[in-house]
């Protein structure tokens, strides 16, 4: 059975916020699932050939050349962002040459 601390640690690693009352529910459910998959311990894996796992897939190579994506597609992708660069740059004309993506501060204050 996973402890509450372990559940909170997993949630933090997964970057998923859990409400306090949810921790207990997930504690029970995750423990159940892990309990079920424990049975893999008993499998004798001698003779397991990991290399042959895929359908004889081989690595595919191509020239390391940049693909000129049409500007229209870049526009579309930028439109999906929750905080569009045009807004964050305060540029009403939307003519900003280099699009920036605004995120919360990564660095702390220097003490």
């Amino acid at each position: 059975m996973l402890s509450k601390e372990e559940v909170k640690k997993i949630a933090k690693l997964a970057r998923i916020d859990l409400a306090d009352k949810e921790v207990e529910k997930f504690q029970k459910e995750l423990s159940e699932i892990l309990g079920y998959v424990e049975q893999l311990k008993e499998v004798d894996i001698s003779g397991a050939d990991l290399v042959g796992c895929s359908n004889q897939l081989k690595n595919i190579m191509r020239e390391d050349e940049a693909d000129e994506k049409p500007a229209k597609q870049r526009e579309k992708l930028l439109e999906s962002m929750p905080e569009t660069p045009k807004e964050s740059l305060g540029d009403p004309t939307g003519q900003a040459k280099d699009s920036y993506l605004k995120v919360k501060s990564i660095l702390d204050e220097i003490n």
Partner: protein
Amino acid sequence: MKLTNLTIREANDGLKKKEFSVQELTLAFLENIKTKDKIINAFLAVCEDKARTRAKQIDEIINEKIRKGEEIDVLAGVPCAVKDNILAEGMKCTAASKILENYEAPYDATVVRQLKARDVVILGKTNLDEFGMGSSTENSAFGPTRNPVDPALVPGGSSGGSAAAVAADMSVFALGSDTGGSIRLPASFCGVVGLKPTYGAVSRRGLIAFASSLDTIGPLTKNVDDCEIVFDAIRGRDPLDSTSVESSKLKIENCKLENCKVGIPREYFGKGIDPEIEKVIKSVLQKCQDAGIKLEEISLPRAKYALACYYIIAPSEASANLSRYDGIKYGFSEKSAKDLMEVYSKSRGRGFGPEVRRRIMIGTYALSAGYYDAYYLKAQQVRALIKKDFDDAFKKVDMIFSPVSPFPPFKIGERVEDVLAMYLVDIYTVSVNLAGLPALSLPVGKAGDLPVGLQIIGKHFEEQKIFNFGKFLEKITKNFHE
């Protein structure tokens, strides 16, 4: 003749003979959706205007071709539906999740591009379990889909919307995705045909990724012939999916049923299977034997570990694939977040449903330091052995038959609280994904009033043999679409 009851070939026939137009056909389906979908909830989005416009264009294309005496593509003008984890440009693609509730697809998935090139009419996007995680379509953030056979029951999942759309005559065919049984199970529960192709036969580009070594896209159709038509339209190597492989159709001479042996895995008919389902499957096997098909008992010794193996590998890959939903690039972003960590954890905490959070956390745990060897590595080793069991069996037989599900369709709400009870529904389907094999779900009878699907598993890239067997079984069980 009810327009919404037609197969692809029947629709094509009617269009060629000008018995009806693409617009009339499309309207008939849009009407059906209006009347039936309030209850069934198969569609998350219906693109009525786009469909009508496209139908008009295709009518002009077809009329021009008839005038010139040219061939009409078998798929031209055929209305279809697409599971809402497959991108269709200009339409929302939600993966049935709050985290993508307002996300608009910036491009077409390769399979959508391929079908559009064949002049299909897309009616809309269908409901699914969130991110493909589930076996009943109850994990959708936008309400469950109901089984058209009995609306109190689940349609199966995760492609429940697609299966229900085809079963309820709201679409001629639909695209679904299958990671652990998500095409085959709803096909079985709704009484339609569903194909999980060989891993790599169909491009995954534009499919919202769940577990990249297991995900496949495939058709749900009214009969096997339609299934083959759609599969042929979407198969092929795609430079944008490096795991896709060019595969050519097997020559018919190599697929004669008289020369094929069918394997019946003894481990799949033990305890746990519903007696009504077992009766139906055994009766089909008897009919096969009576028709001269050679049946042979085979063993898949590690089959019993497939579910445990899947429920480590799939969540692990999912935890990696779903890390992209961070509230930054697209999707739901928690505005009240105070710092970067809160942007991530609050957006994901609020945007993801419970099953998705469960699976991400299992995956995170299985991949974390100290646990990777015991869980993920071990599961991949067991996976290699499960695949070896199939390879060994396929040295003796050409096909493997099994039930699709040990249980008939269950009531909505019946299993949703018991996580393991829900997972057990996939017990016959997951091993096929682990081994990358193709498999068809074919309706072969009823348990009471409820449809029962037979699973036909083939060797890698031998979908042709599966189709041949499927068509043969349709005849001998007289279950083909009329």
